[in-house]
């Protein structure tokens, strides 16, 4: 076989593949997305101005952001199982709103007391990842200057960004980056860096109490934050759900995964990963034709509730984007946030919970949202961020 043969083979392999969408479809989707962005921006500005905040809107915020929960913009109501984004999002102000601000000081010069979030911007023009930023609880954005975690590449060369949801510890004091052959632990309160050698390809990180669970496709370790001691752990790095920070060290680890008709919730021993229970995930509470097809992104526990992003069947399309909240004791789906179809694939990864029971989720294109499953309320946190975010907690 020569190059010409290979070209011929590739050509005949696809000769019956033809576009199913008209050329204008992408433009129309973009038009709807732009319209939504404009409406969101206009409403946010109007809220700011009408609230007497004209000067505040034009002046950079001074001092630390308020350490309080976001006030709801609508009265709570009994929420149905399937919820949707409001036509117009409000942005009531949030400590995380500074996430998109440029870094003004290196971390080494001004370590944090507690980080609220990490952000790695993505340059759309050059298709490159920028330097990692650290947003402290004082509202100051630092540049992570003490180490530059590299993107990970598996054996086949598939690349993943170094910063992913889950790398920031729940207490906001440490960041853990999976690297091939090692785990990087950054103490954000002192800017000290430790590199813990570990065998094999590592890509994903989950904080479980004072341990870092780090792994890839074929191996997972649990690493003690204080001592750096590592031991193998029998869990799936992809399906492991980030435990509730309030749960103890011995609390069972939870995995959710599978595909439509076979979605499973599994609990495992925190000590060695031995399977304790396994049960089907049920979505009978959802009205027809809603179903959960498959989960993606990291799942997050908050008490006995579990939130994870998913592709769903909606009343519009099979393959819509959504976020699912389920009962981690029974595997029963309680709520679905239907995010529709005019979004990027895997647009809307869950990034955690806040202490008031709201799910924080990414929106792409877009920014960051809070969703209260019990009330159906959805508020905006940040607009138009391009890049990867990891939140504390």
């Amino acid at each position, binding site marked *: 076989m020569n190059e010409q043969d290979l070209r011929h083979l*590739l050509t005949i392999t696809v000769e019956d593949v033809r576009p199913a969408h008209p050329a204008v479809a992408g433009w129309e989707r973009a038009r709807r997305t732009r319209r939504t962005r404009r409406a969101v921006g206009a409403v946010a500005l109007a809220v700011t101005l009408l609230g007497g905040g004209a000067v505040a809107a034009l002046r950079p915020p001074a001092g630390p952001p308020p350490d309080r929960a976001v006030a709801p913009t609508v009265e709570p109501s009994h929420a149905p199982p399937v919820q949707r984004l409001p036509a117009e999002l409000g942005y009531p102000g949030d400590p995380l709103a500074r996430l998109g601000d440029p870094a003004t000081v290196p971390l080494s010069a001004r370590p944090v007391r507690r980080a609220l979030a990490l952000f790695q911007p993505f340059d759309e023009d050059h298709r490159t990842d920028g330097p990692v930023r650290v947003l402290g609880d004082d509202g100051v954005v630092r540049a992570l200057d003490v180490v530059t975690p590299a993107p990970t590449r598996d054996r086949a060369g598939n690349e993943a960004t170094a910063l992913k949801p889950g790398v920031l510890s729940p207490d906001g004091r440490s960041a853990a980056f999976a690297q091939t052959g090692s785990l990087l632990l950054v103490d954000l309160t002192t800017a000290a860096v430790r590199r813990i050698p570990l065998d094999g390809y590592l890509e994903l990180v989950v904080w479980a109490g004072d341990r870092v669970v780090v792994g890839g496709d074929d191996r997972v370790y649990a690493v003690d934050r204080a001592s750096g001691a590592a031991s193998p752990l029998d869990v799936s790095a992809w399906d492991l759900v980030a435990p509730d920070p309030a749960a103890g060290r011995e609390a069972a680890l939870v995995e959710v995964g599978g595909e439509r008709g076979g979605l499973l919730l599994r609990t495992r021993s925190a000590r060695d990963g031995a399977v304790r229970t396994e049960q089907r995930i049920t979505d009978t509470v959802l009205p027809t034709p809603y179903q959960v097809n498959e989960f993606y992104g990291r799942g997050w526990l908050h008490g006995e509730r579990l939130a994870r992003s998913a592709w769903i069947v909606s009343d519009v399309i099979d393959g819509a984007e959504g976020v699912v909240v389920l009962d981690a004791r029974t595997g029963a789906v309680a709520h679905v946030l239907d995010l529709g179809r005019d979004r990027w694939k895997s647009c809307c990864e869950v990034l955690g919970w806040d202490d008031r029971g709201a799910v924080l989720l990414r929106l792409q294109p877009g920014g960051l949202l809070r969703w209260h499953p019990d009330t159906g309320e959805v508020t905006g946190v940040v607009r138009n961020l391009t890049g990867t975010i990891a939140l504390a907690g």
Partner: protein
Amino acid sequence: MGTVTTDDGRTSYVAFVEVHQHRLLRAAYLVCGNRHQAEDLLQDALLKLALRWPEVRHRDPAAYVRAILYRDAVSWWRRRRRERLSAQPPEQAAHDRDGALRLTMHDALGQLPTRQRAVLVLRYYEDLTEAATAEALGVTVGTVKSQCHAALRRLREVAPDLARGTRPAPTTPDDLIAGMEVNP
């Protein structure tokens, strides 16, 4: 009085997509191994292109959308999903010679990692140079070379008979060719 133009880029965008989408979809299919996934991938890439059209239209929109398409194809969660989908059986049966080759090639490609498949498609379906392939994938030329080499070696392993299918039936034993010989 001249005609007032209110074109916001729609016309040029649609014209661009009409020209390129067929080939892009086929490339996406070769990388994904699944038609629905390829449609998803292309629609996402075209949405991103449309959102950036005012800035990109006067540069090289084909390179821009190609970079999105291929990098998304090998991206994180999508990769996980594709791996499961590509394990599903082929979408249609084929009875003719080309159909059989198509299925064999589809199955053989399905046994390559996504990044290697993307390199093969960019090099031998899109006919890009190594440098342009590297740029589309955001990797070095050295990575393209090594991935291409590994992909071809893997193809030889998983489909040793594939080469024979692309040529007329041999008339003498000397015409039989074992394995592939491709100059990356």
